[in-house]
């Protein structure tokens, strides 16, 4: 026996490469495509102040193998740096902070390149931006010189470079993504259970035939066959049965579905040794989720309704495929089938047959969408794999920063901030009574008040916040946040910087790999209560 099996052994296979082994735990999250994107990324950190949060972020990007980074930081290492920044040591004292940090970060991963600035006294940020290869993302930490912001913004406009502003002080931190226009993500990695789309209410002909053939003499099947009918087959069969006694309508209300579930449950055989049937249990458990007519998820509707804002967008693969999928949806009344089939009790060959029916249909849908893509000008060069990925994820495709941001002038940004702040503070009145957690917007405001200065007193912070919230001094949360920020005097706590650096690195990875869903657009962290809030500001 062993000999026969041994002779059937496939040829000796090459195990994973050294690099695949090193990156194994992350390749399981973002695959080779995500890794390739990381490895071709070039990140700039413009560092300032206590200087730790940006370095901790870089650590979390150097380890997974970002292509290259540059640090611009004009500070010289002093004693206080050594108490908060892990990527400095005794030898660093008196040297440029950007240099020392770069050298110690590069030790973490020999595959990463890094450089530091300014090397001479006269090297400016402006000349660095002009002379360097294009940056994929620019991060800067507060306090930041106000004139730098204009540099970043014009660079971002010109090269469509995302910006990340980071601020960490004492127990508090916040960071904000500025994406240069609408940012669509196809590979959002939804939970596996959310991607199941079985179409049992309106099976296409091949699926319907398959199911009806299997269940045609369901009562005559022996216990083994009966107990191995896949639950998809059972659902289609019992929906048919239901429709016959309900004017050809499927169970649609919650009450109907409960009744339908009972119908399925009572059809299970209980006289067998197991006293029940697993496949019927699975069918009953799937009723509420599987008996849902096709609908357009709100995220996708937003994409269908979106008008590309410039020629670049119009000719991008994403928007061309989106418009082809929209046509598909309009014509078919449903999205392309994702094509995956969850595991279910069934005989092996039956399950595989069923799996192939779903896969075939998914491929047909992809082909239909691809045909439409090809008919669109600039659609002829689009990679079919991109179309396939879109179709597979269609229900979960997401658009971040849909309104673009860049088109808005400062006054409207300030207007939006005021609106959100007012709303948050008004909500707090109810939250207090309901013992719910309060908004973290006061923390954001207090941090913002010191965005361009090394430190400020609580009174100064409140005076600054009062420009957005006129009665800031009377608001208890704002007053406390201002005191807490003042307490730090612009200093960082290593833990809060490390925690924030972890969150920012996650966001960077999401933006660079275009996988998972980034924040839209501001995250505030409260290290006293250990929680975050994301707001669109």
């Amino acid at each position, binding site marked *: 026996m062993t000999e026969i099996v041994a002779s059937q052994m496939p040829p000796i296979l090459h195990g994973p490469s050294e690099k695949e082994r090193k990156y194994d*735990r992350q390749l399981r999250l973002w695959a080779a495509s995500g890794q390739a994107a990381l490895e071709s990324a070039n990140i700039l950190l413009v560092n300032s102040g206590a200087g730790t949060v940006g370095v*901790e972020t870089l*650590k979390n990007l150097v380890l997974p193998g970002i292509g290259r980074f540059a640090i611009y930081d004009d500070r010289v290492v002093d004693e206080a740096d050594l108490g908060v920044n892990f990527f400095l040591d005794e030898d660093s004292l008196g040297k440029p902070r950007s240099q020392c940090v770069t050298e110690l970060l590069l030790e973490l991963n020999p595959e990463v390149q890094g450089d530091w600035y300014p090397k001479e006294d006269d090297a400016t940020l402006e000349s660095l931006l002009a002379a360097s290869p294009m940056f994929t993302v620019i991060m800067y930490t507060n306090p930041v010189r106000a004139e730098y912001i204009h540099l970043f913004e014009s660079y971002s406009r010109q090269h469509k470079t995302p910006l990340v502003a980071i601020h960490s002080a004492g127990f508090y931190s916040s960071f904000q993504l500025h994406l240069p226009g609408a940012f669509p993500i196809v590979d959002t990695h939804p939970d596996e259970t959310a991607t199941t789309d079985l179409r049992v209410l309106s099976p296409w002909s091949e699926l319907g035939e398959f199911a009806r053939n299997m269940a045609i003499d369901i009562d005559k099947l022996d216990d083994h066959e009966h107990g191995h009918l896949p639950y998809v087959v059972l659902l289609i069969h019992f929906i048919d049965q239901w429709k016959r006694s309900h004017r050809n309508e499927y169970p649609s209300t919650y009450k109907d579905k409960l009744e339908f579930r009972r119908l399925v449950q009572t059809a299970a055989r209980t006289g067998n040794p197991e006293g029940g049937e697993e496949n019927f249990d699975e069918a009953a458990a799937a009723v509420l989720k599987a008996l849902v007519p096709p609908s357009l998820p709100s995220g996708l509707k937003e994409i269908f309704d979106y008008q590309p804002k410039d020629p670049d967008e119009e000719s991008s693969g994403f928007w061309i495929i989106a418009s082809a999928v929209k046509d598909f949806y309009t014509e078919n009344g449903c999205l392309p089938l994702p094509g995956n089939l969850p595991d279910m009790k069934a005989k092996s060959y039956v399950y595989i047959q069923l799996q192939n029916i779903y896969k075939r249909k998914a491929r047909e849908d992809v082909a239909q969408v691809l045909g439409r893509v090809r008919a669109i000008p600039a659609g002829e060069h689009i990679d079919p794999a991109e179309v396939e990925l879109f179709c597979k994820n269609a229900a979960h495709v997401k658009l971040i920063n849909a309104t673009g941001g860049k088109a808005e002038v400062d006054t409207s940004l300030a207007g939006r901030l005021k609106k959100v702040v007012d709303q948050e503070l008004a909500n707090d009145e109810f939250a207090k009574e309901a013992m719910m957690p309060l908004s973290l917007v006061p923390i954001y405001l207090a941090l913002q008040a010191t965005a361009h200065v090394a430190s400020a007193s609580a009174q100064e912070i409140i005076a600054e916040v009062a420009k957005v919230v006129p009665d800031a001094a009377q608001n208890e949360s704002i007053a406390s946040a201002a005191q*807490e920020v003042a307490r730090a005097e612009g200093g960082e706590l290593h*833990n809060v910087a490390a*925690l924030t650096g972890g969150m920012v690195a996650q966001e960077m990875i999401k933006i660079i790999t275009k996988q998972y869903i980034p924040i839209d657009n501001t995250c505030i962290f409260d290290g006293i209560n250990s929680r975050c809030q994301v707001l669109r500001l």
Partner: protein
Amino acid sequence: MASAQVYPASEPARWKYLDRIRTRRGPYTTEAYDPSMVAEAMENMMILVIGAGGLGCEILKNLALSGFKNIHVIDMDTIDISNLNRQFLFRQADVGSFKAEVAAKFVEKRVKGVKITPHNCKIQDKDEDFYMKFQLVVCGLDSIEARRWINATLVNMVDEEVEDSYKPLIDGGTEGFKGQARVIFPTITSCIECQLDMHAPRPAVPLCTLASIPRQPEHCIEWAHVIAWDKEKPFPKLDKDDSEHITWLYQKALIRAREFNIPGVTYSLTQGVVKNIIPAIAATNSVIAAACCNEALKIASSCAPSLGYPDNNYMMYSGNDSIYTYTFKHEKKDDCPVCGNLARELVVDPEWTLCELVESFAARPEAQLKKPSIRAESKTLYMQSPASLEEQTRPNLKKTLRELGLAEGEEIGVTDPAFATVSFKFKLKFKQ
């Protein structure tokens, strides 16, 4: 506020930023807080870090930069190449060395004045006298079993008369872009055992699926792992870190998959299933370890309220879809087998054999016991060891609970070698 006095540590210039926070009153510090004592108290405190892996490396760095001076770290593992994408205290040349030792040395060298003592062993190798020396324990583990062990140990060490016997436990865990940080004050707050059902094990694939009706690539891999390996024993003992062994399983799984036309068996999936690999990245470790150490600093200094008591004790973090945290209070359970004193209700079918009951403990989210021994009020039902007792009690496995004379409402005690100190008390409730 900003002019309040700073009480410096031994190197005031170095700890300037930290001292502003830990030695000055803020709007949320409690009345009892004494800023003049903090720096010195923290320098004299002994803190134990369990695990020197992804979280552990971060935790050691964070504690060293939070003003702790006397840190111990315990980990039995050696460094593997797949650690290097996040365990930033290790380099290629360290592969094969003990994690605790390399990590301790690195942080000691980088952060002047901190003393880190490594222990290259299992947590179970240390006794209560060892754990009693510490004022605070921070865990960065990847195994639920080890967490439960240290949790039970710390709960059992509590002596109401002795204030020093209460050791706060801070625990972190991650998976991909998600994680959690929690604070436990043994016997006072909800403990890890109380929270066990928040981390339910993945349901095992039934053996009959593996043996006769595989449908998924995972079924083929598990078949190779559980059935083919035992039958053919290609190597004396399965070493999940040996690529030759994994390759053998992979090839076996591949043949099985071809036989049933099942797509999707790869080397990487084989390794993932066999080793139960959880994806891990530096960024998430950074978030969770820092959340834990932030609590350690607050507990050690009282410079701000910490998680734990009386309110929230658990922070859940998710970064897959935007960023979401949920910080809440997990309630202590009176019927917790470790920190409660009531027996927990256990719904059973009186027609089950004892064997079925024994096997059911592994899958129950609130029990998760792989090798349970069971005693009833008046007699021993089944003992896994020693061998003589096992043999004596083995015939009971075939009897139904009713035949064994067990009655509704009866209490049984369950022990498991993984948690030697704990007896799980259950009260039987018969299924209708």
